[in-house]
């Protein structure tokens, strides 16, 4: 091979004519297709497999959801527990009341429950949840009526309100608070965000009410 300057390639990205396929460097096809294949498997096929598998984790009558620190609520029957634990679940986990979550789904309706440190009242927590929703959803959010107070079966007091998000999607918020002491190292807030299409949401209202009534905190647990 000659070492004269005229023999060198014009630039490092130059590809000889006999090494091209549809204008692309043949040597780049292998690695590029390998990367694309792996991405398709990981980000396409695996999620598709997940979508094809249905949940079997349906709640039964008497199932109680563990939100940590003795805070629990009774799950409505026949819903799918996609996140969170029952009090009867055995596993290498312990639920922290200041970072607990549970998600129950039934068709297009979803109940998202979240526990976290909260120093104020249930009204203040509801107001904070409203503020977050307003920021995230903007003008699409319309709160319907004034907040209503709930007294649970255990005698705790919470507060709830309903809202409209867009033309056909509704929602409901509920907030409870538990003071520090016993198994709770600090004051805890428990927030329920229930969302779904208006029509379906109305259908599940009685069981959602029952669920909210069941919220309790057993100091000794």
């Amino acid at each position: 091979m000659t070492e004269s300057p005229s023999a060198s390639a014009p630039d490092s990205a130059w590809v000889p004519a006999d090494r091209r396929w549809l204008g692309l460097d043949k040597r780049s096809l292998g690695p590029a297709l390998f990367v694309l294949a792996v991405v398709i498997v990981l980000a396409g096929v695996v999620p598709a497999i997940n979508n094809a598998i249905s949940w079997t984790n349906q709640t039964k009558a008497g199932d109680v959801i563990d939100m940590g620190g003795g805070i629990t609520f009774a799950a409505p029957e026949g819903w799918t527990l996609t996140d969170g634990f029952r009090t009867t679940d055995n596993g290498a986990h312990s639920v922290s009341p200041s970072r607990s979550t549970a998600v129950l789904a039934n068709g297009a309706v979803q109940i998202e429950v979240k526990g976290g440190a909260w120093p104020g009242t249930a009204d203040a927590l509801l107001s904070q949840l409203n503020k977050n929703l307003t920021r995230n959803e903007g003008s699409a959010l319309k709160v319907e009526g004034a907040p209503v107070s709930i007294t649970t079966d255990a005698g705790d007091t919470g507060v709830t309100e309903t809202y409209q998000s867009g033309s056909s999607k509704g929602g409901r918020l509920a907030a409870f608070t538990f003071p520090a002491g016993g198994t709770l190292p600090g004051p805890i807030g428990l927030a329920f965000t229930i969302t779904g299409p208006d029509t379906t949401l109305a259908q599940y209202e009685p069981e959602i009410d029952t669920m909210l009534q069941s919220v309790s905190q057993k100091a000794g647990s």
Partner: protein
Amino acid sequence: MSQATEAVQPESKQRQLEVLRHSGWGVPFRIFQPRNLCFWVLLLGYIGGVTVALQVIRPTAPAYSSALGYGVVLFAIYAVPWWLYLSHLNRYTTVPHKIIFTAFAWGFLAAPFWIAIRANDAILTIYAKAFGNAWASAWGPALTAPFTEETAKMLGLVLLLSLVPQVLRTPFDGFITGAFIGLGFQISEDILYGFQGATAQFGLNQGSLVGQTLVVRGLAGLFSHTMFSAIYCAGLMWLLNRDGSGHRLRGLGLMALATIFHLTWDAGGVYFNHVLPGAGPVILNYVLTIIASLITIRWLLRTVRRDERGWVRDVLQPEVEARVLTPAEVDVLSGGRKERRRLLRSVSGHPTRQIVKHVITAAEDLATQIAYACGRDTDAVIHARTEVARVRTGGGRG
């Protein structure tokens, strides 16, 4: 190449040219290569990463914008010492900055958002569906992320190997490129965790919650993605036999080891729970993982740098023979802190030490210029050589 140099020192000059050819040091390249399909896949990865990142962040970003802002600023600051440290490691036959930025961006955008987040979510949900939420919560992270995330990060190196094959040739190159991919991934993940963690108090105290994430993730980050990927990608270079050493099994072993470290880190000691009570499993798990990873990284760094150091010596040997540099100065350039300290101790007086430091810096410039000139005596090389002579005399105007 100067005829005089070739006539006087043909052997060392030939060795220099051979090393420059073999190591790819100073070889010109560009990332923008429209004829290379890997370039388009890289671009697709960045676009896909940005798109998914927006989809993930946008729904709750308005309520948690402070957390996002704090996270970006704090973790950008956290990345600075990491960047400086990795750049310090990258000081022999350096991996060019363009490659490093490309690698970091792959780790920051494409690997986490285009690939890993979707695969992780799906696999964790499959586990929960198949084995229940309690099992998925305990074992899911350890049996998901090490496989999906190490693969996602490694794909960036695969693309770069096709884009700049002449530059990325050695396990050292894989180590450095992998470390920057891992750093990008780590910072991206930290910002996301800070953002998600800030929901813990329903939107209150977002700054302090991100601060807590910074402390926890910052400490954990010392033995996390940057290290995993450095080990994994150095292993890939050996597995592909890029350096012709034939250590394919070593490469495979290192890739497996990086995956195991990631697994034990994410498992948090769940497998020890059956034999040890309380916090014991977690502490034992992390202590064992940290010790094993430190031993691995120390051995790996020493191994991957051995060739690089020899190459620096070979590239500069003609300069020693031409009396431009002394053997002790080449020792410093091809060595580490020990050699530098030894040379500085061998001279007395602050002004002389300053001169030695300037000579070392000028010699580094000379080595870089020789590499860029592929061993030829270009104007830049001659200028760099003159600079060495000038600073050696105390720094009069050259």
